[in-house]
């Protein structure tokens, strides 16, 4: 009666585990692993954003965002990161079309733009610090330096990764591994650009409003 519901499964008596499973899709497996990391990173940034949102009015007599932020500098940082995000995508596209040289050039442009972003950010931090407004002054500045500093740290790691990618592409050429690493790097870089849009809007623009 219920015979049709029973699945007759006969496992292989001696499965060959030494051979890789042809049905296993390594690319999407590693892709998902990295994607999960990005999503947890997103939660990390959420907590920092909320900390900033709760504390940004607590200036303890010190300067507020309106006194400190320079909108033009923040806009310049945004543009640098947006352009580097696109050039990084173009590097992967060049790799897809098997043009190693173009891919390397675009990666170089990405690194240059990322470095200019980091320079602007560090200059801003130094500027605040030299005016005597360090992270010790108020809860507002502590949360500001934590949020923007964490993003800057991610950018630093991303730039290191990009540098290593250039070395690997020069040394190994375009292989399965280097292509996958390039794609994962582009994901990481686009993700950082996405986070920066929120920093630009919710920290800088709203701080000035």
């Amino acid at each position, binding site marked *: 009666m219920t015979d049709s519901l029973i699945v007759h499964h006969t496992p292989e008596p001696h499965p060959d585990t030494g051979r890789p499973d042809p049905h296993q899709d390594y690319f999407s497996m590693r892709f998902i692993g990295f994607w999960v990391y990005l999503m947890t990173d997103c939660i990390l940034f959420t907590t920092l954003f909320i900390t900033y949102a709760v504390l940004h009015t607590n200036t303890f007599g010190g300067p507020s965002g309106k006194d400190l932020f320079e909108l033009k500098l923040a806009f310049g940082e945004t*543009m640098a990161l*947006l352009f580097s995000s696109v050039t990084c995508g173009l590097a992967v596209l060049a790799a897809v079309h098997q043009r190693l040289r173009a891919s390397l050039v675009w990666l170089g442009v990405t690194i240059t733009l990322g470095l200019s972003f980091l320079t602007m950010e560090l200059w801003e931090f130094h500027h605040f610090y030299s005016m005597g407004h360090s992270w010790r002054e108020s809860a507002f500045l502590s949360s500001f330096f934590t949020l923007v500093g964490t993003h800057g740290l991610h950018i630093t790691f991303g730039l290191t990764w990009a540098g290593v990618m250039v070395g690997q592409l020069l040394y190994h050429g375009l292989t399965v591994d280097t*292509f996958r690493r390039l794609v994962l790097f582009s994901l990481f870089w686009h993700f950082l650009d996405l986070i920066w*849009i*929120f920093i630009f809007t919710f920290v800088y623009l709203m701080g000035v409003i």
Partner: protein
Amino acid sequence: MSEEISLNEEKKLWHGTYLSYGIGFFVSLIFTSISFLLVAFQVFPPEVLIYTVASFALFQAVVQLIFFLHLGQEGKPHWETFIFFFMLLILLIIAVGSLWVMNDLNERMMPKHMTTTHHD
């Protein structure tokens, strides 16, 4: 030889095109510039400006997720999209919950109407 084949197969799993990057780039460029100019010249009253700029940021985020991070374009069991929406749920719980609790706390510690204190 076998490596060459699998490299080509890997390339098929990646969804970027010049068109998708172009769209993502120009939409982000336009919306970032508009929100910068709106704030720089204080076009609207602050209240309106905050909502405009925030909605522009959210729109840009969606555009970048689709055109740069290729959300929802992967193979059939949409694992990445599923993980993303689960993350979004957790994110909203953390964000809304924290803001609610902290605002409530601020309201109780430093009531806006100091003259009319209520005791229940």
